[in-house]
Structures are given as C-alpha cells and as structure tokens.
C-alpha cells in the first residue's frame, strides 16, 4: 500500500486544534511522551509496515 499524502482529513483545522489542545499545560518532557504514545497508537492502527516505512522516510526528509 501507498502512504496517503493527499488531503484526507475532513476538517484539518479542527484536527490541528485538537492536537495542540492535547498538549496544553504539558512540560516538554510530558509532550514528548504524549507524542510517542500517539505515534505508537497510530502506527498500530495503520499496521502496514510498508506504509509506516514511507511515513518514516517522509518525516525524516530534509532533517538530517
């Protein structure tokens, strides 16, 4: 399967607000833990290792 990179969220502004809201009042360390849990939950939901590999590659791109 191919990683979906076309717009797929019905209401992107709403999701973005939810994401920021989830981190409200957290220390950097707590936020990192939340992000890590979120990634693991979503990765399990996706399941397909090929899609996950593409997502990891896309996320890493341009960083180092």
């Amino acid at each position: 399967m191919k990683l979906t990179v076309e717009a797929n969220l019905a209401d992107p502004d709403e999701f973005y607000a939810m994401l920021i809201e989830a981190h409200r009042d957290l220390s950097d360390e707590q936020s990192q833990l939340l992000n890590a849990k979120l990634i693991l939950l979503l990765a399990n939901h996706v399941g397909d290792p090929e899609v996950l590999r593409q997502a990891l590659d896309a996320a890493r791109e341009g960083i180092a």
Partner: protein
Amino acid sequence: MGVFQNPVFEYVRSPDQDAPAPVRHAVAVVGAGPVGLAAAIDLAQHGLPTVLLDDDSTVSVGSRSVCYAKRTLEILDRLGCGERVARRGVGWNAGRVYFQDIQVYSFTLMPEPGNRRPAFVNLQQYYLEEILLEQARATGKVDLRWKSRVVDLRQDGPGVALRIETPDGAYGIVCDWVVVCDGARSPLRQMMGLECRGEVIRDRFLIADVLMDADYPVERWFWFDPPFHPNHSALLHRQADNVWRIDLQLGWDTDPDEERRPERVVPRLRQMLGDREFELLWVGVYSFACRRMERFRHGRVLFAGDAAHQMSPFGARGTNSGIQDADNLGWKLAMVASGMAPVELLDSYSDERVAAADENLLHAARSTEFITPKSRMSRTFRDAVLLLARSYPFARRMVNSGRLSVPAVLRDSALNTADADLFAGPMTPGAPAADAPVVVNGELRWLLECLGNRFNGMYFANGMSVLPGEVAAGIASLTLDRIPVETRVVVEPGNPIELPPGVMKLEDYEDLVAQRYDAGPGTFYLLRPDQHVCARWRAFDAQRARQAVLRATCNEPGRSD
C-alpha cells in the same frame, strides 16, 4: 541442600611434557567451559580424540549462565547427557513482564505438546559443566589438562604449534586443528591479533545468586521500573536447589567494585525480597558487548562460543548459541580430520554460525535498546510502550525484555539442497529437526533420540503394506556409501509393514511426525549429523539423496578443488 563448593581438579603432568619433541595431536580444544566441553564430547563421539586445555582447575565460579534452551537440551541429548541436565535443573515455559507494579505482558514459549524437552531448563553453569565433564571423561577420548594455559600459538601450513604453561613449566604440542572456546576475552583471539567488532553497551548489571525458600512459580519474571528498584530493570529466575538468580540494572555511572560489596548488595536485595530470609551465594557486576568476529575459521583454528561472538544476556543466547556452534562444528571437523570431506566444509561452519550469530545479535541489540535506551527519545518511546501496555494489548507485544533463544534455521546454507517439491511448515532445509513422540518395538521413544549423529534418512511409509522394492534397495545401498546414510521408516501406529533387517521402524502414534514434517506416503527427509534438515522430497530417489549428501559435505565434484 548444601551450598555448592567448587571442586579443585588435580593438575596432572602430561607425558607430552617429557617428550623429546612436541607431540602431535589431532585436535586441541582450548577452554573447558560448556562450549569447549560440548565440542570435545561431540568430537569424541565421532571418534576423534582431543586434548582439552584449561588454565583453571575447577568448573565455573558462580553460576553465570542459567537458561538452557530446548535446542541445547536436544543437542545435549545427542551428546548423551540431556537427561541429566534436565533432571538436575528446573524446566520452565512461561514468563511475565511487569511495569512498575502491574503485569503488562506474559508469554508461553512452548504451546505445543509432544516434545521431549521444555522450552528451557534453568541450571547453574557449574552443574552443567560437572555433567559435561562426567560425559567427557566417559568417552575415554578427551585428554583433560587443567592448569594448562596456552601462551603462544603459531600456525604454519600443516599444523598449529601451541606453547602451554603449567605449574611445572612450559611445553609445546602440535595439533592438526585447534578449537578456541576460551570465552569473551579470548586470549587466543588476541594472540592471533583478531578482532571482535561491534558495540560495548553502556550499562551495568548486578547479578546475584541467592539461596532462599520461595514459592514463586518457575517462570521468568522481569520488571521495568519496579517499586523496589525504581527507574531500572530487574529479573528473577529460579535455578536448582532453591537458588535464585537476580539481575538488577545499575546504569553506566556506577562503580562496579563498590556495587559488588555485600554491604551494597544485601540492602538492594532486601528491597526486592522484603522480609524473606535469604543467603547471598555469589555476586557479580557485569557490562556486555554485542559483537562478533568477522569469520570463525582462521586456517586450522576455529572459534566458538563467546570467543567468536558476544551478546546481551537477556535472550539467553550466549551459552545456547555456543553449544549450537559446537554442534555445528563437531561432525564437520571429524569428517575433515578423517579425510571424508575437504576443508571447505569448515568454511561452512563459519558461514552458518556467522549467520546464526547475526540473527542472535539482531535480537540481542533490539532487547538491549529497549532495556538500555541509548538516547532520550529512545527512552521516551520505551516508556510510551510500557504506559500503553498497561491498557492496550498491541503495545504488550512491543515490550521487549529479551526475546528468548530459538535455534538458527540455516536457510541460506550452501550445504542445503533446495526444495524441488512443495512443502508447508517449518522443516525447511536448514531447520533443526523437530522432535515428536514415536513408538519403537512397542516402546515409547522420541524421534530425535532415534536419529543419532550420522547422516540419517527418514522415509514415510504411512499407509503402505509393503516397502516398494526400489525404496528398500535404495535405503540399503545408501548404508554402504563412503558417507553412509541410515534411514528410519515412519509409519502409522500398528502398521505391520516388513522392513529390511537393521532398518528401524518408527510408529508415529500421535501423527505428530507426519504433521511436523508435512510428510505424506513416500516423503523422504535427509538429516545432517547435527540433526538439521538438508534435503527433502515427496518421493524417494537414492541417487538424489546421495547427491545431497555430497553437497552437504562439500564433496560435490568440481567444488572442492
């Protein structure tokens, strides 16, 4: 039960020390630990005498390795001492992993019944070594030399010259082959200027063996961040005679000399064990590396066990992989030494066991990253997995407290004959033969004990009332080859089929042999002397079997020269 006292074996002057010139031997094995002993016994069973050199004069001080996997027990069965090890130790199949004070994961390693051996037997290393020593002595072919330290090794074309230091002076011997099993620091490897590459893990662990009466089940218990040892991991495991192994993570910034002092150790254990009475028997602080030599054969010198590869202890892959090294090497070295196979067969030892070491190292590295995360982010993900594991089953499967040793499948070995027929299941060429219960002459036996340590065939004659003439003739002709193949015939229970004299009939009374080997009437399996599958077909053809034996011994025409 008494506390173990290390025996002291007497140093005995060898007649070699009084010989006018260095005496020649077929094989010297250096290091009388579990791997060296297993190698010497295996070689002896193949008719090859060995000189076994050890710089000490006792068995393991402290228990060190503890868990012996099913495959190791099966190898020890072949060496004639599996039953003693299994009886002396405690068998177990299950483990639990805790995060703080709740269980987040549990596993059973052997769901399948119909195996002679459990997933693991725990036994102190010194008891394993005592049993192996007894077995080595019983062969009459192992010349054990205590207090004999190899101080120099020189390899020229036809042999290896060893210089050996003893309490009454040094002497030399010359060997056709040297098997090096002298442990992780391997003085011989260093003497030869050979490297063991990989990484040293920046963490330290306290291991303690304690004597206590406890009614915990015989399971492997592992904690991340337990209340009694916050922010670190802990492991509890039972051994024989009410001795328990405790392994506590300390972190890198700790002073090993300080940490092994009983005044430090006892309070730590008290935290864990509460008011329970215990006696501290032995304590050590260790750190470890994950690395291996580039190859395990260097001319006439062969490396095995920790000398060749080292890894994190959390998968019980150290001694178990070392014993598998010995198992892989024994028959090959015996065949090369007796001229039955070219030296290339010893390169296959290196190729097969390097591949196995890489598999072990991969699993060890992953467990290590989970137990000792190398970066802050790695630590964050580890903690995230543990937190999720409290509520969600998917995360429990990510919890990695050590994936326990399973035998290597030598899938890519050049000694295999690739499948031409379709088979399902795990008994692919390169796989270690699965065990199953069988009946022989009305007696309940195990398949693996009926196979022995030569090339073996397994012919499935389920449902047949007579053995086809060409099969009977082919099976008989294979026993007469230069490298003989002895075939067992597998049938359904009660089948009265007449077999030629000397051919063992195995009644597959639970149908597990046929199931585990995905075999039907006419299927033929060829097994190596170390009981790994090397070829299989849906129909028997002696010529193809013969060809597969040549391949499995590097004797194929045009290959060895």
